C-alpha cells in the first residue's frame, strides 16, 4: 500500500534514454501514419523545388545572359563571333537547357520535359540568339521558376497542415490518456504530488510535444533534407568548389552546439531563480494581510528586491549567450558568401577552371544561391533543436506520470458488488503510509447495518485512515476490510464506491450551477429529485435566495458561498446519492448558530437508517452514536457508548473533560 513515493523514486533514478522516449512518442503517431506519409512526400517535393531554384537562375545566366554579353560586341554582320572566350564557352557548355544537350540528371530531365510540355523553345545555340529570342527565353524560364515557387510554397503549407493535424490528434490522445490515468491513481498519489505539477504535465508538457513534433520536427527534417540535397548537388557539379562553399558549415555547427549548450546551462539557473520569484510572490500576496498587520511591508519589499535582482542577473548572464548565437551564425554565413564569390571569381579570371572543372558565371551564381539556402537551415536547426530537446524532456515527464502503476487496482476477476445491507467489518487491520511506520495497528471492529460509529482521538491517531480504508482509497497492509462479509479488494472499486456516500470536511464544489453540483451525487437524478435532496439538507432556503436560484453558477471552489452553506450542499449531494454506507468527516470550522443548527438537523436525517462512520467533532454526534471508537496512536484503546466511556474514566474521559472542565468550574 501507499507505495507511490517509492515508485516516484524509481522514476527519478531510472536513466532516461532519449531514443527510447522518442520511440514511445512515435508510437502515438502510428494511427496517423497517412498524414505523416503525405507530409513526407510534400516535404521531398517542396525541397526539390527549393534546390532547383538556384539551378534555374544559373541557367538564366548561362543560356541567355552571358552569351548576350559576349555576342553583343562579337557578332559581325552574320559573321562568326570573333571573340568567344573561355567564359562564353564555359557558359555554353553549362547551358544544359540547350536543345542539343543531354540531360545529366532527373531534375534536368523534368525541367526539359516541362519546357516541351509548355511548348517552349529550348535554345538551339545559346551563343547566337537575337535579343528578342533571349527575352522570350528568359520569360519562359522565369515562368517555370514561378511554377516551382508555387509548388514549393503550397506543399510547404500542406506539410505544415498535415503535421499540425497529426500533432493535434496526438495531443488529444495524450491528454485524454493522461486524464484517465490520473483517475486511476489512488488518493495517496495526490497527497504526495502537487496539483500544479500534474496540471502542467497535462497542459504544458503535452503542448510542447505537439509543437515540437508538428513544427520543429518537420522543419528539422526538411532542413536536413535540404542540406544533404544541396551538398549532393554542389558535389556533383564541382567537387572543389563545393568543398570550399561548405567549408564554413562545420564552424557553424560547432558554434551552434557550443552556444546552445552554454545558453541551456545559463537558463537552467534562470528557471531556479524565477521559481524563487514565483514562490516569494505567491507567499507574500496570499499572506498580505498578516504582513500589514505585523508591519512587515518594508522587510518584505527588501527581501523581494533581492530575489528579483538574482533573477535579473541570472537572465542577463543567459542572454549573453543567446544574443551571440544569431550574430555569429550570420557573420559566418557572410564569410561563406565571400568565399564562394572570391573562389568563383578567381576561377573565372584564371581561365574558367577550378580544380580542373569548368566554371561559368552561371555556376557561380548557382552556388551563391546554394550557399544562401545552405546557411538558413543550419540556423533554423539550431533553434529548433532546442525545441525538440524540451519536447523530449516534456515527454519524459509525461511518460513518468503514465508509468506510475496505480497501487490500487481492480483484481482481474473482481466481482461487481450487488445491493448490500451495510455491515462493515475491519478484521485485524494494519496500515502504513511509509514502510515501518504503522498508522493503524490491529484494528478490529464491526458496524451492523444502520449503526452510527463515531471515531474520536487526537490528531494523527488514525481516524482519517480508517475512513479512507472503507471506500478503498487506500489498501490495508494487514488484515482486511469487509462489507457484508466480502473483502473490498475482491470487488470492483466502482461498484464498491457506489454503495458509499462521503461528506468531507472541506466541501469541493465545481464551477457549474448549484443544480449540477448537487446532481454530482447521482447524474441521472431529475431536477425534482435534486430539489428534494436540497430540501432534506436544509439547503433549499439559501439556494432560493441566490440570484438565479438553482441555476446560479458557483465560482472557483464554490466561492460566494459560506462554509456552512457549502457543507449543506455536500450533505444534499450525499443525500441524493442515497448510499447504504455513509462516511462523514465533520467540519469544525465555525459557522453561525443558525446554520450550525441546520447542519445538525440535516446530518441527523442523512445518518438515519445508514451505516455511518463519523469523525466526530460535535458532541451531539458523539452522544447519539451507537458506538464510539477512541483511537490513540493507531490503536483502538476504548470503545462503547458515551455514558459507558465516561464512567470508565479513561482516555475518553480525559479528552472529554479537557474541553469542558472550565465550563464545569464556571457552572460550579
Amino acid at each position, binding site marked *: 500500500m501507499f507505495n507511490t513515493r517509492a515508485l516516484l523514486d524509481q522514476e527519478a533514478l531510472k536513466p532516461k534514454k532519449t531514443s527510447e522516449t522518442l520511440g514511445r512518442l512515435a508510437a502515438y503517431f502510428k494511427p496517423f501514419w497517412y498524414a505523416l506519409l503525405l507530409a513526407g512526400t510534400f516535404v521531398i517535393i517542396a525541397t526539390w523545388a527549393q534546390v532547383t531554384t538556384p539551378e534555374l537562375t544559373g541557367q538564366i545566366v548561362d543560356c541567355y545572359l552571358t552569351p548576350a554579353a559576349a555576342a553583343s560586341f562579337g557578332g559581325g554582320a552574320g559573321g562568326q563571333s570573333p571573340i568567344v572566350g573561355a567564359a562564353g564557352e564555359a557558359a555554353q557548355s553549362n547551358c544544359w537547357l540547350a536543345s542539343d544537350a543531354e540531360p545529366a540528371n532527373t531534375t534536368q530531365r523534368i525541367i526539359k520535359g516541362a519546357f516541351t510540355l509548355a511548348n517552349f523553345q529550348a535554345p538551339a545555340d545559346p551563343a547566337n540568339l537575337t535579343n528578342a529570342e533571349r527575352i522570350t527565353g528568359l520569360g519562359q524560364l522565369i515562368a517555370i521558376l514561378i511554377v516551382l515557387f508555387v509548388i514549393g510554397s503550397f506543399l510547404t503549407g500542406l506539410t505544415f497542415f498535415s503535421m499540425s493535424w497529426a500533432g493535434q490528434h496526438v495531443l488529444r490522445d495524450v491528454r485524454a490518456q493522461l486524464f484517465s490515468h490520473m483517475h486511476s491513481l489512488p488518493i495517496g498519489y*495526490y497527497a504526495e504530488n502537487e496539483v500544479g505539477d500534474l496540471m502542467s504535465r497535462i497542459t504544458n508538457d503535452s503542448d510542447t510535444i505537439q509543437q515540437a513534433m508538428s513544427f520543429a520536427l518537420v522543419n528539422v527534417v526538411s532542413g536536413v533534407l535540404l542540406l544533404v540535397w544541396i551538398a549532393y548537388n554542389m558535389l556533383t557539379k564541382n567537387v572543389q568548389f563545393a568543398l570550399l562553399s561548405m567549408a564554413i558549415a562545420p564552424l557553424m555547427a560547432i558554434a551552434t552546439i557550443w552556444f546552445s549548450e552554454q545558453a541551456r546551462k545559463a537558463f537552467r539557473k534562470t528557471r531556479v531563480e524565477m521559481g524563487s520569484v514565483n514562490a516569494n510572490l505567491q507567499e507574500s500576496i496570499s499572506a*498580505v494581510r498578516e504582513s500589514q498587520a505585523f*508591519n512587515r511591508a518594508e522587510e518584505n519589499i527588501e527581501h523581494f528586491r533581492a530575489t528579483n535582482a538574482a533573477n535579473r542577473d541570472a537572465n542577463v548572464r543567459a542572454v549573453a549567450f543567446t544574443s551571440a548565437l544569431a550574430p555569429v551564425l550570420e557573420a559566418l554565413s557572410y564569410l561563406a558568401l565571400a568565399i564562394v564569390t572570391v573562389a568563383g571569381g578567381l576561377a573565372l579570371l584564371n581561365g574558367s577552371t577550378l580544380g580542373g572543372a569548368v566554371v561559368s558565371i552561371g555556376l557561380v551564381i548557382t552556388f551563391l544561391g546554394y550557399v544562401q539556402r545552405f546557411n538558413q537551415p543550419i540556423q533554423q536547426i539550431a533553434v529548433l533543436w532546442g525545441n525538440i530537446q524540451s519536447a523530449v524532456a516534456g515527454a519524459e515527464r509525461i511518460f513518468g506520470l503514465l508509468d506510475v502503476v496505480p497501487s490500487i487496482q481492480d483484481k482481474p476477476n473482481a466481482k461487481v458488488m450487488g445491493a448490500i445491507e451495510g455491515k462493515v467489518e475491519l478484521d485485524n487491520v494494519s496500515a502504513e503510509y511509509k514502510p515501518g511506520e504503522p498508522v493503524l495497528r490491529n484494528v478490529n471492529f464491526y458496524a451492523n447495518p444502520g449503526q452510527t460509529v463515531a471515531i474520536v482521538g487526537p490528531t494523527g491517531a488514525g481516524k482519517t485512515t480508517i475512513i479512507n480504508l472503507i471506500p478503498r482509497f487506500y489498501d490495508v497492509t494487514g488484515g482486511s476490510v469487509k462489507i457484508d462479509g466480502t473483502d473490498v479488494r475482491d470487488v470492483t472499486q466502482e461498484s464498491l464506491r457506489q454503495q458509499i456516500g462521503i461528506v468531507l470536511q472541506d466541501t469541493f464544489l465545481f464551477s457549474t450551477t448549484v443544480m449540477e453540483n448537487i446532481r454530482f451525487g447521482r447524474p441521472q437524478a431529475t431536477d425534482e429529485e435534486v430539489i428534494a435532496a436540497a430540501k432534506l439538507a436544509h439547503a433549499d432556503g439559501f439556494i432560493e435566495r441566490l440570484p438565479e436560484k438553482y441555476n446560479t453558477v458557483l465560482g472557483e471552489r464554490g466561492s460566494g458561498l459560506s462554509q456552512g452553506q457549502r457543507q449543506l450542499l455536500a450533505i444534499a449531494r450525499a443525500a441524493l446519492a442515497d448510499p447504504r454506507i455513509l462516511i462523514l468527516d465533520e467540519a469544525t470550522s465555525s459557522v453561525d448558530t443558525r446554520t450550525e443548527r441546520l447542519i445538525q438537523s440535516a446530518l441527523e436525517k442523512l445518518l438515519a437508517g445508514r451505516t455511518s462512520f463519523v469523525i466526530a467533532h460535535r458532541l451531539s454526534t458523539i452522544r447519539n452514536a451507537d458506538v464510539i471508537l477512541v483511537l490513540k496512536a493507531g490503536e483502538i484503546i476504548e470503545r462503547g457508548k458515551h455514558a459507558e466511556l465516561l464512567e470508565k474514566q479513561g482516555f475518553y474521559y480525559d479528552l472529554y473533560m479537557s474541553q469542558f472542565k472550565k465550563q464545569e468550574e464556571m457552572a460550579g
Partner: protein
Amino acid sequence: MQATQTREGKRAKPAAARPKLPKGVFPRAVRYLFRYKWEAALPYLFLLIATLAQLAVPRLIRNMIEAVTQGVVATQVLEGLQNIPSAFMAQALPRILEFLNYTPGTTQEQLVTQLTVDKVSAPEALIRAGIFIVVFAVLRGLFAFLQSYWAERNSQSVSFDMRNELYAKIQRLSFSYHDQNQTGQLMIRATDDVEKVRLFLGQGLVQLVGAVVLLSATLLILFTTNVQLALVTLWILPVALALFFIFGSISQPLFMKLQVRLAALNTILQENLAGIKVVKAFTREKSEQRKFGESVNTLMDEQIRIARIFTFLFPLVFLVANLGQATTLNAGGQQIIAGTLSLGEWQEFSLYLIYLFIPLAQFGFIISQFGQAMASAGRIFEILDAKSDVTDKPGALALPQVKGEVHFEDVTFRYFGGGEPVLDGVSFTALPGQTVALLGATGSGKTTIINLIPRFYDPSEGRVTVDGHDLRDVTLESLRAQIGIVLQETTLFSGNIRDNIAFGKPEATQAEVEAAAKAAAAHEFIMSFPQGYETSVGERGTTLSGGQKQRIAIARALLLNPRILILDDSTSSVDLQTESHIQAALDQLMQGRTSFVIAQRISTVINADQILVMDKGKIVASGKHAQLLEDNEIYAEIYNSQLVGDSDAPKDAA
C-alpha cells in the same frame, strides 16, 4: 480564476471582446527604459551600425562580380584583339569601344593598356572586396550581438523595476483591494504580464526600429540604384501588407475562441485534480472522462481550424516574396540583355530585395507582440495606479505608547463604499486591560469591528480612537506596532520556526522568542523537532498541525507585547487535548491587555468584561454574562444554541 474566465467566455458578446487600450500606456511603458538614459540608447546606436554594415554587403558582392566580369571581358577582348587581322581593325575598333563604353577615338594602344590594367588588377579587386565583406560581416556580427545583448539587458532592468514596484504596491494596498482581487490574478500580473512587456521592450521595439530602418534604407538604395527595376518589383510591398492584414483579422477571433476553449479545458482539469476525492467517492470517473474528451476534441478542432488558415497564409507570403525575386530576374534580365544593367548590379538588386522582405515578415509578428505587451502593460499600470483606501495622511504623527483605551464613536461601515451598511452606528468604549467578547451570527459585523481597530479599513462614517487619537491621524506603522493579532487561520512563511515567531519583530533575541513560545505552550512541541527552532516550515518545510500553527501565531503576538490584542478564539480542526493547551495560552496572552475576541467559547464569554452582541451591523446588547443572560433574548438564544447546547453534557455525566 480559470473558472471565472470560462464563465465570462460564455457570456462575452463578440462586440465587447476587444477592449480599447487606455491612452498613454505605450509612452509610459517606454519611460521605464528612459530611466536607464544612455544605456537605453545603446542598443539603438548599435542597431544603426549593424544595419549599415549589413547594407554594405550587397554592394560589395556587386563590386566583386563586376571585378570578375571586367577582368573576364578584358582578358577576352585582349585575346580577341590579337585574333583580328589588322585590316579589319579600323572597322572593328569603334564597335569594341562602344561595347566597352569607352570614349570613341581611343586608340588601340590606349585600349590595350587600359584592358591590361583591368585584367591584372581584377584578382586584387576581387580579393579586396572579399576581405571587405568579411570585415563588414564581423562588424555586423559584433554590433548585432551588442545590440541584442543591451536590449535584453535593459529589458531585464525594466522588468526588475516593474516587479519591484508591483510588489511594493501590492504589499501596501489596503484590505479592501485584496478583498476584490485574487492572489492568482495579482501573481499573473507580476509574472506573465511583466514578461510580455519585457519581451516587447527588449526585442519587439528594437526589431521594430531595426525593421523600419532597414526597410527605408533599402528602399532608398533600390530607388537610387535603379528606379526602373525598383518600380517593377515593389508591388510586393503593399500586397504583403494587405495579406498580413487580412489574415490577421481572420485569425484574431479564432485565437480568442481558442483561449476560451483552453480555459474550459483547464477548468475541468483543475477541478478534477483538486476534487479527485469527490470524483472517486461518487464514482464519476467515466462521465468526467467523457466531459474532458469532448473538451479536448473541441479544442483540437479549433486548433486545426487555425492551422488551416496558416496553411494558406505562410505559402502566400513566401510566394509573394519569391514573386518579387522572379520579377527582378525577369526585368533585370531584360535590362542585361538590352545592355543597360550589369550582372553585378543585378545580383546586388536581388540581395537588397531580400532585405526588403525581412522587415516585412517581422512586422506581422511585432504587431501581435505589441498588442499583447500593451494589454499587459495596461494591466500592470492598473495595479500601480490603484488607490489604496487606507494610507498615512500627510503630516500623520507616530502614535505614542498607548494605555489601550479603544473607542468607537457612531461608526458606520460599508464595503466598497456602497450598499447596506455592515456596521450601523456602532459606539462603545473598551477601557485599558478590558476583554471585549464579540458575539453574533456570520455577517453580523464582528469581523468588521476587529478590522477597524488596526485600521485595515476606514469607517465610512464616525471614528475610531485609541487613547483619544483618531486612527486616521496617526501613522499606520506606529498604530499596528501596538496591536497583536491572532487570526483563525495561521499562515506560516517559508523559513524556520524562529523567523515565524519573530515575524513582527525580526530583531528579537533567541531568549525573547523562546519566552514567547513557552508562554504560548509551543516550546515543548518545537523542541520535539530534531532541529528545534531551526526547523523549517512553510511550503517546503515540515507540516505543522492546525493546533501547532495556532500556538505559533499566539507566540508571534506575545513577542510583540502589544497593548491591544485582537483574536479569533475558534480553534478549528484540533483535537480536544490540543484545544485545552491553546485555551491556556490564550488566557495567558489576554492578561492585562485590551483584548477583542470573536468568541466561540463559553469560558471567554463568561470571563469577558464586556460582551457585545451583534446583529445585522448593530450592537443589540452589551454587558456582562450574568446580566445579559437574564434580560436579553438574543444573547440567551445564542448562548443556548451555540454554547450551552454542548455544555449540559457534563451535567449528565456527573
